[in-house]
């Protein structure tokens, strides 16, 4: 049931993402592009440099550019650092997948450690079994006290 819900949500999200790519909104792009002189996204800045990029974005939206085309144009001018998040392609993919791979690797490592630890605990009594003669003597001693 849960998986079905996730699938339905994912399917509903696809047309929305597609529309956003073909007809980007100014506010949306301003949240995804950095101001080159203030270290915040455009929507957080009133600096002249940010205002200039906002004007460029507005002109490109009117011209009918897609979101990717606008971002490509900005990257060509300012470099990759102009994007608030790395792109999900090429080298930028590393930024998305390395943390996930790291979390999975750490989980596997912890799981493996826990498995080894539990196995070691299971084996422990065998390794510490008493000498049979000593065990018999201990039983005799205990029997005397009962």
């Amino acid at each position, binding site marked *: 049931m849960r998986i079905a819900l996730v699938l339905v949500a994912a399917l509903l999200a696809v047309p929305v993402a597609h529309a956003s790519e073909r007809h980007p909104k100014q506010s949306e792009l301003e949240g995804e592009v950095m101001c*080159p*002189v203030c270290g915040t996204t455009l929507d957080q800045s009133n*600096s*002249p*440099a940010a205002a200039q990029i906002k004007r460029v974005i507005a002109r490109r939206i009117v011209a009918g550019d897609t979101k990717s085309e606008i971002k490509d144009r900005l990257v060509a001018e*300012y*470099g990759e650092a102009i994007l608030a998040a790395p792109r999900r392609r090429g080298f930028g993919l590393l930024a998305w997948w390395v943390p996930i791979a790291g979390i999975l690797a750490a989980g596997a490592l912890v799981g493996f450690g826990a498995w080894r630890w539990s196995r070691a605990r299971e084996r422990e009594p065998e390794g510490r079994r008493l000498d049979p003669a000593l065990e018999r003597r201990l039983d005799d001693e205990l029997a005397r006290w009962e």
Partner: protein
Amino acid sequence: MARSARLTTQALAVALVMALLALLVWRVARDSDKGVSQALKDGEQPTAPAFNLKRLDGHGRIDLASLRGKKPIVVDFWASWCIPCIHESKRLEAARKRYGDRVAFIGVDTKDFSSEARAWKRKHGITYPSVHDGSGNVLTKWGGLPIPKIFFVDRAGKVVGELIVEEDLPRYLRQIASS
């Protein structure tokens, strides 16, 4: 076997920690590389950091290192969104008429949109050549924001000064023109 596996794991863990430490040291050393502005404030005359950037007008590139030993240079960092840059670039344009035969004037349009920068140059009548440093990487090596930032490089390629007050312009121009 179990012992060798454990040793290998420990060696890998130590290697990973060493690699991370090396990365940290490299990063700190890189960040502490002071720009030209700071070096000048510390009384040094650093070698002008090289750049090889596309010209704004589209006519090839300018390689700063290729000018070393030939001409003294004025390097002007500007952007079309920078209001004080208008005044300084116009002063440089006027100075170019007097010193242009002995000193090279190069603008570095930084963190800017190149079409806006070209329009800005036309609007304000700035004719000395400019290159485009959109990412601002070159600006960072010279000292970073704020702009305008104007530096004077002698014929040997040493940065002898930065424009701080208006009187610096004629003073440094005379100095580098005679270098």
